[in-house]
């Protein structure tokens, strides 16, 4: 019999429930508000009092209202039909909801139970299988979607029977498996998994070995993120965090992109589902929406479901990873999730950590980042979840708990800087302070040297060093004045400006410049490094400035032109001409 309870206290969305039986941590319950069932999750138990966070507004709730516990944790429904979906944090399908306004207690099915899928078996009767092994597949839109042994199955199973090829809905039994005790289990095309638990069922999790191309030069060349890697983008508001994140979502080299809009603006989500059905994936030529899943819990939606939204998104990524796909998860913003944790911790009157955040914040964040990664599946194939989170530091100050905790967990750091944004130097990623740990991985270095060119890492480091040096020179020039420094300082400064304007800056709203494939990045870096390696010997810093500005202008025009088109080549010729007038 299900445990029941009654409401005994309410502070905003934290409700205290007196229970009449056993309850589990993170168990779900329904609170009956005049016939409307509000979903809530147990977050603390003291004696017979359970503290639950309600995923809806508690307006109108009274002490004495009835509560029914559901005996399960928050779960995601996993099966064919997730692609192109628009879900809320609890995986309710937002597209099938009635009316303009969200109604409390209205829950919709994440998957279509009537749609028929063309099933093809991949295993055969008598096979020994384990959790996450592939039993069959259906074609989801364009993607061969594997039907797997449910992740919750532990130990060895024997395939008793498999459905014949044919059209089935997701509730139809497509396999019967026998466990080690001889008990038979029916398997359908849909399984459920508790979102807060990491999906296992792979052979190993090796170190990442190749980069995930994004078409953004300051990432791919300067601070590449690995497939199966982790990165984060902290930045004050107005620094282009969202634009950069959307650029990665549009251009990232991944099979599946899951976007978790966690406590952010609703219009940003609208932008995705308005534009993505029209935009083309540069890697496959298909519509972007066809590879995208949106989980949205915008800032005005119930706070408690923010936490659920990032976990639901991660679980969906892990599900597709188990099919051997490369998934990219983007969460905007993990700070809102941390704030949701803070609100609850505060209402439960826990002793606060720094800035009133809960003391286990750091552990929660690093556990979450640890779910990303490249894996080798039981059948030897590989899959990956790459995770990039944004962080919204209060006051733009990176010395705050969420940024600091994330810095310990993520391997790439893309620091957005107010100063660069003020000067409209977009993307406003600080080229000196940002880093990618993956550049130091021998595995990554090896693949880069093979796929891009031998000596590539040395070139990247050379360019980085030129930028760093230019920054130092700029400081000297500012202190001592244009006349107070040797000409070589001006030259070094302008070389770094050249790299900044012609390579690091990129126009996310220009159809051509926004996507820069790796071969084009290599071409441009070679061109720019060739300029930077020359000595120009100017006798006047004014001339130096004018000369470099002209070069920058030509290089920018090249960035705006189709790669190796006539226009591009013409600019290239004028650049060569300009170079022949000066320097050696």
């Amino acid at each position, binding site marked *: 019999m299900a445990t029941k309870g009654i409401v005994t206290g*309410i*502070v905003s969305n934290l409700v*205290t429930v007196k229970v009449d039986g056993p309850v589990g941590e993170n168990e779900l319950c329904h609170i009956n508000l005049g016939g409307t069932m509000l979903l809530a999750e147990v977050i603390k138990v003291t004696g017979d009092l359970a503290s639950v966070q309600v995923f809806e507004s*508690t*307006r*109108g*709730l009274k*002490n*004495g209202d009835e509560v029914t516990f559901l005996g399960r944790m928050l779960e995601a429904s996993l099966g064919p039909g997730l692609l192109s979906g*628009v879900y809320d944090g609890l995986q309710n399908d937002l*597209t099938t*909801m009635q*009316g*303009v*306004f*969200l109604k*409390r207690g209205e829950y919709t099915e994440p998957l279509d139970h009537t749609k028929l899928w063309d099933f093809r078996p991949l295993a055969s009767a008598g096979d020994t299988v384990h959790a996450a092994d592939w039993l069959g597949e259906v074609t989801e839109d364009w993607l061969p979607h594997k039907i797997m042994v449910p992740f919750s199955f532990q130990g060895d199973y024997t395939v008793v029977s498999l459905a014949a090829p044919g059209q089935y809905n997701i509730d139809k039994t497509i396999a019967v498996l026998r466990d080690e005790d001889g008990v038979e289990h029916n398997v359908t095309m849909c399984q459920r998994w508790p979102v807060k638990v990491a999906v296992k069922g792979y052979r190993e999790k090796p170190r990442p070995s190749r980069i995930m191309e994004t078409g953004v030069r300051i990432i791919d060349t300067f601070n590449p993120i690995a497939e199966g890697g982790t990165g984060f983008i902290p930045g*004050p*508001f*107005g620094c282009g965090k*969202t634009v950069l994140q959307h650029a990665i979502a549009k251009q990232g080299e991944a099979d599946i992109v899951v976007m978790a809009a966690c*406590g952010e*603006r*609703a*219009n940003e989500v*609208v932008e995705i*589902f*308005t534009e993505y059905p029209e935009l083309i994936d540069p890697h496959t030529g298909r519509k972007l929406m066809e590879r995208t899943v949106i989980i*949205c819990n*915008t*800032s*005005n*939606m119930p706070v408690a479901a923010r936490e659920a939204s990032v976990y639901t998104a991660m679980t969906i990524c892990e599900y597709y990873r188990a099919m051997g796909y490369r998934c990219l998860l983007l969460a905007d913003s993990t700070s809102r999730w941390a704030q*949701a944790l*803070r609100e609850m911790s*505060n209402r439960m*009157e826990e002793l606060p950590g720094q*800035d*009133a955040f809960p003391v286990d914040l750091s552990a929660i964040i690093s556990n979450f980042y640890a779910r990303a990664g490249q894996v080798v599946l039981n059948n030897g194939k590989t899959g990956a979840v790459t995770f990039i989170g944004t962080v*919204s530091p*209060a*006051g733009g*100050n990176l010395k705050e708990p969420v940024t600091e905790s994330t810095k310990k967990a993520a391997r790439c750091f893309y620091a957005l800087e107010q100063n660069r944004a003020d*000067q*409209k130097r977009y993307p406003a990623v600080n080229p000196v302070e940002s880093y990618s740990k993956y550049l130091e991985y021998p595995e990554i270095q090896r693949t880069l040297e093979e796929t891009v060119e031998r000596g590539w890492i040395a070139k990247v480091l050379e360019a980085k060093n030129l930028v760093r040096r230019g920054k130092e020179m700029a400081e000297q020039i*500012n202190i001592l*004045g*244009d*006349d*107070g420094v040797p000409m070589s300082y001006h030259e070094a400064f302008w070389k770094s400006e050249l790299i900044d*304007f012609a390579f690091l800056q990129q126009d996310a*709203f220009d159809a051509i410049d926004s996507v820069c494939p790796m071969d084009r990045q290599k071409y441009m870096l070679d061109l720019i490094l060739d300029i930077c390696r020359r000595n120009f010997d100017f006798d006047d*810093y*004014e001339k130096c*400035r004018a000369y470099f500005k*002209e070069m920058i*202008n030509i290089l*920018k*025009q090249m960035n*705006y032109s189709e790669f190796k088109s006539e226009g591009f080549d013409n600019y290239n010729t004028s650049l060569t001409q300009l170079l022949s007038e000066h320097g050696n």
Partner: protein
Amino acid sequence: MATKAYQRIYTKLQAITKATVSLNATGVANDELALVGGRLAQVVKTKGERITMQVFSGTEGIPTNAEVSFFGEPPTLKVSEQLSGRFFNAYGKPIDGGPEVEGEVREAGGPSVNPYKRRQPSQLIPTGIAGIDLNNTLVSGQKIPFFADPDQPYNQVMADVAMRADVDKIILGGMGLSNDDYLFFKHTFESAGALDRIVSFVNTTEEPPVERLLIPDMALTAAEYFAVDKNEKVLVLLTDMTLYADALSIVSNRMDQIPSKDSMPGSLYSDLAKIYEKAVQLPDGGSITIIAVTTLNDGDITHAIPDNTGYITEGQIFLRADSDSGCVIVDPFRSLSRLKQLVQGKKTREDHSQVMNAGVRLYADAQNAKTKQQNGFDLSDYDLRCLDYAKDYAKELLSIDVNITIEEMLDTAWRLFAKYFTPAETGIKQSFIDKYWKA
């Protein structure tokens, strides 16, 4: 909000603070309204029988034996066309001497729009102010605050924008408005002959601060009526959201909550987001655009209130006095309209976004030159040209006194570029240079 006959009256308060009272009662719902000694209060916490309420007008003079009666419902507003042209207080009661409004009772602070049912904002809201239209174009369905020090003329600029905007209804939510500013708005609306398309909810500095907490919900409930039911384009003006946030901190403080940054409640982000996210472009043509004011302390945008606001809103318009040109300008560095690319070059001329970026970048170069000058260094020829350009740019485009069309703004910018720079120095795409450069 008439009292009902069967209501139970309580007469024993267990605790009183400056903003809240607690008593033992049963059958009370969360968020429900009550009268405490004749003053409006709202349930914010229940623990067993102990009910805690925030008293909107403050608890001064409330005795422990004050009469308490519960309404059985959260705050509501009666909505109909009769709202037009009227002035109300925070409770939705007329303050203009007119009759009570008849209409359908709507819950204030109701549910959110399903994000999937929203449409992408795409209609330009021209204001005539180049600092806004050229550099930070506004779009209907957007939410954007003015960030300004208290001495900036933000209410005047906001009134100008409202009067020039092409909308069906304007709804003013005044929080802690000085009596002078209240009369200023009233006078502006009246003299523009625009009174019939304006609804005002006003809490002045003379009234208790906690009452302000009701203003945004009331204003937005009225806005949703016109936008959702009547498919109208509604512009909501909220001034001053800093005073609203201060009222939030008073209540949370009295409830012994642990404060986060700058003594603000930990839920400040969610509290503000609930208001601002009411801005929406609806599928049937109606829209709610929110222009708010967040006053700053000495330009400090890292304070929790502007900081959280900036993360929620779609940009901000930053006003500051510019000593070089002697005008109040829209700061091109700190101001931002996140939705501008939805209309720039689409609803405006193709060169809009490149001209905007070039103009601001050259202005940034002028700021660098100014720093050099202040440090006593010799200025280069380029520096000097930048400085001259900056003066013209501030006066002719950034100043809030400008009132021209967007086409004129673009032409002005091209004229200034040609006056001071070479085409290469602007860094604009060659095809636009060929077409628009005013040699």
